[in-house]
């Protein structure tokens, strides 16, 4: 059996993979090869900047830049090979008219270690049976039928998994805290708000393998003693919302979600909540308020969501990617997971590699992989004629790593030491053409507009900081203004109520630290 897997994620769809799938369907049925060539729409295949992408089985080849005009010739080539009586013994003699066959020995592929994305790009995300065939909900079943909640908690704690939503809080510890809370009705929330601009890891996971996330939520619910869950997803992700709705529906009908799962007394239901365009709603207390149908304003912690969350109930909040790690960790064991990555940052991390980079897309690498590897080797560096100036990580809460520090390993602590954060995984490469002061002003404007307005330091501080940055950009600022930037920035960080304000000055401070010259060059002549 030959198989064609065609990316049907938002990126490739925007490049016309929908038309490609349609043309392939027609060509296959016209050639009456429906029983010999299986065509599957799948999740992200990786190098989005080269889409539409198409994978061929059993060869394992990956083709880039494939269009509907290629369908006829591809099916004809497959037909020829099938008539020769072999599925794969001979390499397929075919290439897309305007695309190419990708060299899978390239670092972009070789350096990946796919755990979160293990089934993304393999299965049709709209077909629960395909997900089950590769093991979806299998770990949930094993857990429900033989594991105590304590065993799940211990295993997760031993694995060293830390939250992938930004802060890197130990996941097992968070679960154990919620599990210890009194109360019969607890809640599990999946944070799918993915608000950092330039980040699309969670979108890819939800579009490509939604059941993986649902399974993680159900296991979490069993471990902490919850019976209900919410997924809070940003409204901009229309396709992910559609796939999730379908996945929840299918899982309920197939007895993977709902009451009395796998013949046990444990039941778990999931509701989808769609955001409405407010960045701050990714912050956990704001997110809870939004789920409750209120304005998404953060509140001081404590009490933490673990004590008082949705509807006042003890609530566990985890990011999409965190939850997507759960099933493989329990399946392969905590030791297996802990051995991947570094001592302080176990496992892998998914990054969305984008910006001024030759090969962009979705990559999953072991923690501790260097930025050099990801940006220069896998991403193949800046486009022709340019050079990398810095890499932005952590979005509006993060900062920049300058080109001469790209040897930094990607782990929570190393990035923090450089004045940025791992963040959720957005990685925007900046080349020499990038104006770092303009970039700082851009992020400050972002935070100013997204500040919920509840606390003064964040509300007024971001306005003032943005004003100062604009003055510098206009060439009418003095050295005193530069000092003012730093003092005010520190004040906003120290006194804001929530993470938005506490980290709003970070992109600016980080560019001041590494690209001070860019600022000085713009000051008014004394």
């Amino acid at each position, binding site marked *: 059996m030959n198989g064609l897997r065609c990316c049907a994620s*938002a990126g490739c769809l925007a490049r016309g993979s929908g038309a490609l799938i349609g043309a392939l369907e027609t060509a296959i049925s016209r050639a009456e090869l429906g029983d010999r060539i299986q065509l599957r729409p799948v999740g992200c295949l990786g190098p989005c900047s080269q889409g539409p992408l198409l994978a061929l089985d059993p060869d394992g080849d990956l083709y880039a830049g494939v269009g509907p005009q290629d369908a006829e010739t591809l099916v004809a080539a497959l037909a020829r090979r099938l008539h020769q009586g072999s599925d794969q013994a001979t390499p397929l003699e075919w290439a897309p008219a305007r695309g190419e066959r990708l060299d899978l020995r390239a670092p972009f592929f070789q350096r990946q270690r796919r755990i979160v994305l293990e089934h993304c790009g393999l299965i049709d995300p709209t077909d629960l049976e395909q997900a089950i065939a590769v093991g979806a909900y299998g770990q949930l079943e094993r857990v429900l039928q033989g594991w105590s909640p304590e065993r799940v908690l211990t295993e997760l704690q031993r694995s060293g998994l830390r939250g992938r939503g930004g802060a890197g809080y130990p996941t097992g510890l968070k679960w154990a805290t919620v599990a210890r809370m009194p109360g019969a009705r607890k809640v599990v929330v999946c944070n799918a708000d993915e608000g950092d601009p330039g980040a699309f890891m969670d979108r890819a996971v939800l579009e490509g393998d939604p059941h993986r996330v649902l399974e993680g939520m159900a296991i979490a619910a069993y471990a902490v003693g919850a019976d209900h869950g919410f997924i809070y997803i940003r409204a901009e992700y229309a396709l992910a919302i559609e796939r999730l709705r379908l996945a929840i529906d299918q899982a309920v009908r197939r007895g993977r979600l709902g009451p009395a799962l796998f013949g046990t007394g444990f039941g778990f239901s999931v509701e989808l909540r769609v955001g409405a365009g407010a960045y701050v709603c990714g912050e956990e207390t704001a997110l809870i308020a939004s789920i409750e149908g209120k304005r998404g304003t953060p509140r001081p912690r404590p009490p933490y969501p673990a004590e008082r969350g949705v509807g006042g109930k003890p609530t566990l909040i985890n990011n999409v990617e965190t939850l997507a790690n759960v099933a493989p960790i329990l399946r392969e064991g905590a030791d297996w997971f802990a051995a991947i990555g570094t001592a302080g940052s176990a496992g892998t991390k998914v990054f969305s590699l984008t910006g001024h980079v030759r090969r*962009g897309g979705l990559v999953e690498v072991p923690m501790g992989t260097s930025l050099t590897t990801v940006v220069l080797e896998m991403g193949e560096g800046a486009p022709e004629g340019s050079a990398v100036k810095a890499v932005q990580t952590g979005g509006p809460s993060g900062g920049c790593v300058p080109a001469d520090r790209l040897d930094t390993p990607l782990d929570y602590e190393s990035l923090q030491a450089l004045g940025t954060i791992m963040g959720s995984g957005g990685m925007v490469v900046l080349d020499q053409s990038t104006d770092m002061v303009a970039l700082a002003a851009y992020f400050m404007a972002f935070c100013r507009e997204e500040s919920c307005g509840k606390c003064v330091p964040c509300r007024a501080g971001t306005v003032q900081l943005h004003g100062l940055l604009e003055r510098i950009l206009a060439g009418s600022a003095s050295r005193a203004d530069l000092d003012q930037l730093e003092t005010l920035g520190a004040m906003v960080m120290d006194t804001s109520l929530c993470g938005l304000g506490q980290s709003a000055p970070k992109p600016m401070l980080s560019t001041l630290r590494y690209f001070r010259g860019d600022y000085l060059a713009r000051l008014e002549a004394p």
Partner: protein
Amino acid sequence: MPVPTKPESFMALEAVLLRHHRSPDSLIEILHQSQNLYSYLSDPLLRHVATRLKLPLSRVKGTASFYHLFRFQPPARHRCVVCTGTACQIQGASALIEAMEESLGLQMGDRRGDGWVSLSEVRCLGTCSDAPLVLIDGTVGRQQSSDGLRRWLQELEP
């Protein structure tokens, strides 16, 4: 489209309210559905939602106005959106905004008085490999150039 004003004219919303058990917790979901059904959140519609959920109108309006995606006037016939996420920003979003503003005679965030066209921004659609991108009436224009964009805008039906 005439704006329905009488409560009974929001009949299509009943099924939605029922599905959410008229629970104030579901206010945002209900506002989404209301906007989908009636294209924007008119005053009478917000009042209707408040009444049916037994919430003060101020609470409903206060919540709705917090979120960027809720509209309080009818959408323009043509909706032009520029992505200003980081990847698009560093690859030319500003030039695209300029081209839009110039061609349409509008400022970012505005809507033409006669409701023909509006110009707004979105912060990352999550398809950053296509940066810089714009969205016109739901169609993505990827790796957009200012010139290409100007030509596209000229083709918009009057």
